[in-house]
């Protein structure tokens, strides 16, 4: 794939007014790319950036609460910081980091060369990034959102939140929602429609399965939050009366719509992490995953049941005893499939020859820390207990054990595990282990004490507390813990930089650094532009492992081939790939103008709207495959496609 751009592509036919972008490695290539791997990396970089932003917000919260009557942030600023911490971590860090893994790995795990709709994939990323930028622009344009990530009405109305912050919330999240919806449709179609020969649904890796369930949840959950955000935006911008109690507007309507989305969202966040550790644990236990069908079906069950538990977020909102009882019961049931998964991971490790490399440590971290979060979750399924716990730090402790313990640890397991796949070198395992232990200790110091604080009665979302309630000690512990987490992230950054510097000038690591099991490792590290030299024919679950191992005459597992023999060498040339396109980023660039226009001056929506419309039309009439692009393969030039021709 080295010869791709040796013939300088200046001769490209003008398409409309622009020349079709061609492959390359400069910045132009990154903004026009439709390659799922580059888009995955873009998602990863953006998500880690926002993760640091959200982390700084978290540190500010902990500084404010370190001592009684904290003065680091005022009450108003505190509201903005905790709102943006939640919004940033959920929508701009955890979801896109999962999307990074999904984009990079799904085509590789199912034996495809790209996603089904490559330009839409680029669109998803740019629209997400535009949404993230719009949300954070609020800091300098009149104040950040201050109504909590859950945005309860009527507190978010113009009366109680007069700064434009909640407008940014409504419109910025709408954009990230569109991005998620487009990407979920794309990945659903990819997984169903682009599997390699022999890759039946039940030969797909558990990660692919969990991503499929996640995408289906997104497909059906994003429109619900879209409506909720539209209602909020129209109320604030055009004076609609949806949440105005003086004329009969109902605050519960927002809560229902928000949590009908919000609870599936919890599983949207956690299932990719479950998928990641379901790849990591078997690899480092040297055993196939225990109970593969149970893993798959419990994931599907979680996806289904996730739709029937939303009102457990509303036990004290006055929804009536029947609703409370019904949702209490359904919430207890959802612990069953989750428990199945935890048992299966433990059974996978049981009797395995476990190797505690960094990815495995993080994965075991998920199993243990998520279990703690799950157990405290069962305590709020019991609605009378929840009445005591709700709106206290006990809830904050619970969901951080789930989200940090379950998701962030899982995503770090994935980062360490697939780093060589993406960049061609491993991260230092020793530093990785230090990273893990500092993070584990910091995490438990930060969020463990919150259980105690909550049961002592310390309320959430309050910017300060008076001395003498017994909150001082545990709050200080928690703040110290949060800086340990920050230290662990710094260690990770050091590890990334140091490993990259050490790898410079070295040949890439071997094709199979972990003795892994699934199809993505069939390609060399780092993955070549065209992914697979030849589309593999799949014969079993854990296809890659089965190509390396067989059984001898006594039925014992023996190595039959080395990874180097099994892996493709990435030498194929002339693989026909989809062409890059300008239009996804042009489309995404129009949206912030529309959002800012709606907030500040409607005239701004005109250029925004024009950009969007222009991008759509240019996009539609641009063939998916540029007929003039050689893609490094002269023989392919004549192979024009049958798409609608250029107007």
């Amino acid at each position, binding site marked *: 794939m080295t010869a791709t751009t040796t013939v300088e592509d200046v001769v490209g036919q003008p398409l409309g007014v622009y020349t079709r972008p061609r492959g390359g490695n400069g910045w132009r290539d990154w903004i026009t790319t439709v390659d799922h791997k580059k888009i995955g990396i873009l998602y990863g970089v953006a998500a880690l950036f926002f993760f640091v932003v959200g982390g700084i917000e978290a540190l500010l919260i902990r500084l404010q609460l370190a001592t009684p009557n904290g003065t680091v942030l005022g009450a108003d600023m505190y509201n903005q910081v905790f709102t943006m911490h939640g919004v940033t971590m959920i929508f701009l860090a955890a979801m896109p980091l999962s999307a990074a893994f999904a984009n990079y790995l799904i085509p590789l795990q199912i034996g495809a060369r790209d996603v089904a709709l490559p330009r839409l994939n680029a669109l998803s990323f740019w629209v997400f990034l535009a949404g993230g930028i719009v949300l954070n622009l609020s800091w300098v344009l009149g104040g950040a959102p201050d109504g909590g990530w859950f945005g309860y009405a009527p507190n978010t109305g113009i009366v109680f939140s007069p700064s434009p912050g909640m407008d940014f919330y409504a419109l910025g999240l709408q954009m990230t929602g569109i991005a998620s919806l487009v990407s979920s449709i794309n990945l659903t179609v990819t997984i169903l429609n682009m599997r390699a020969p022999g890759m039946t649904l039940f030969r797909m890796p558990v990660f692919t399965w969990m991503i499929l369930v996640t995408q289906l949840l997104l*497909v059906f959950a994003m429109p619900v939050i879209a409506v909720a955000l539209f209602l909020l935006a129209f109320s604030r911008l055009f004076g609609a009366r949806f949440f105005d109690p003086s004329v009969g507007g*109902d605050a*519960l309507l927002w809560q229902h719509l928000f949590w*009908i989305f919000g609870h599936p969202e919890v599983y949207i966040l956690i299932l990719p992490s479950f998928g990641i550790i379901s790849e990591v644990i078997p690899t480092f236990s040297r055993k196939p995953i225990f109970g593969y069908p149970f893993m798959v079906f419990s994931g599907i069950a979680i996806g289904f049941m996730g*739709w029937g538990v939303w009102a457990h977020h509303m036990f004290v909102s006055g929804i009536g005893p029947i*609703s409370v009882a019904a949702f209490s019961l359904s919430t207890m049931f959802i612990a069953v499939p989750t428990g199945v998964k935890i048992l299966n991971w433990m059974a996978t490790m049981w009797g395995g020859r476990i190797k505690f490399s960094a990815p495995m440590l993080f994965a075991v971290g998920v199993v243990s820390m998520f279990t703690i979060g799950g157990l405290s979750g069962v305590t709020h399924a019991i609605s009378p207990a929840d009445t005591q716990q709700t709106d206290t730090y006990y809830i904050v402790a619970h969901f951080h054990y789930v989200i940090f313990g379950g998701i962030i640890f899982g995503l770090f397991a994935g980062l360490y595990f697939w780093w060589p796949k993406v960049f061609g070198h491993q991260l230092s395992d020793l530093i990785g282990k230090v990273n893990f232990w500092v993070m584990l200790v910091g995490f438990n110091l930060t969020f463990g004490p919150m259980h105690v604080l909550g049961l002592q009665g310390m309320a959430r979302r309050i910017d300060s507390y008076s001395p003498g309630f017994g909150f001082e000690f545990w709050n200080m512990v928690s703040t110290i813990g949060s800086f340990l987490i920050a230290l662990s992230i710094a260690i990770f950054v050091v590890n990334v930089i140091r490993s990259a510097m050490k790898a410079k000038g070295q040949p890439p690591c071997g094709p199979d650094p972990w003795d892994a099991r699934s199809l993505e490792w069939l390609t060399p590290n780092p993955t070549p532009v065209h992914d697979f030299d030849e589309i593999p024919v799949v014969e079993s679950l854990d296809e890659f492992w089965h190509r390396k191992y067989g059984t001898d005459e006594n039925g014992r597992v023996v190595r039959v081939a080395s990874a180097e023999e099994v892996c493709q060498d990435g030498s194929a040339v002339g693989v026909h790939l989809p062409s890059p396109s300008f239009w996804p980023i042009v489309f995404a660039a129009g949206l912030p103008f529309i959002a800012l226009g709606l907030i500040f001056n409607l005239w701004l929506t005109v250029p925004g709207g024009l950009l969007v419309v222009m991008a759509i039309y240019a996009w539609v009439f641009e063939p998916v495959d540029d007929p003039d692009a050689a893609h490094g393969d002269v023989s392919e030039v004549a192979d024009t496609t049958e798409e609608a021709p250029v107007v």
Partner: protein
Amino acid sequence: MSTDTAPTDVAVDDSNVDDHDHPSDSKYFQIALILGVLTALEVATYYVDIGPALIPILMVMMVAKFFIVAAWFMHLRFDNSLFTKFFVGGLILAVAVYVIALSAFEFWSKG
């Protein structure tokens, strides 16, 4: 394209059809006629008092129209069943979730 000849040929009755065997235009006109009649009946309920049966009857006719359009005009009858699964899946999920939400608002007793 097997339907390019006789517009009177009401082609497809059996379920064993593939993508090349879509109904003929005249079949589409017949479907539209049924839909039109159903709409007329729906509108008639506005003028004729039929008492407590009104809402159930309206719902039955609505569902009938809904599925006729989906099955014939959107070709779900003749197409890959996965399409139906996605669409009906979304539909059932939407109905279930929102019926539960409306129940929580005590819509059916007070609405």
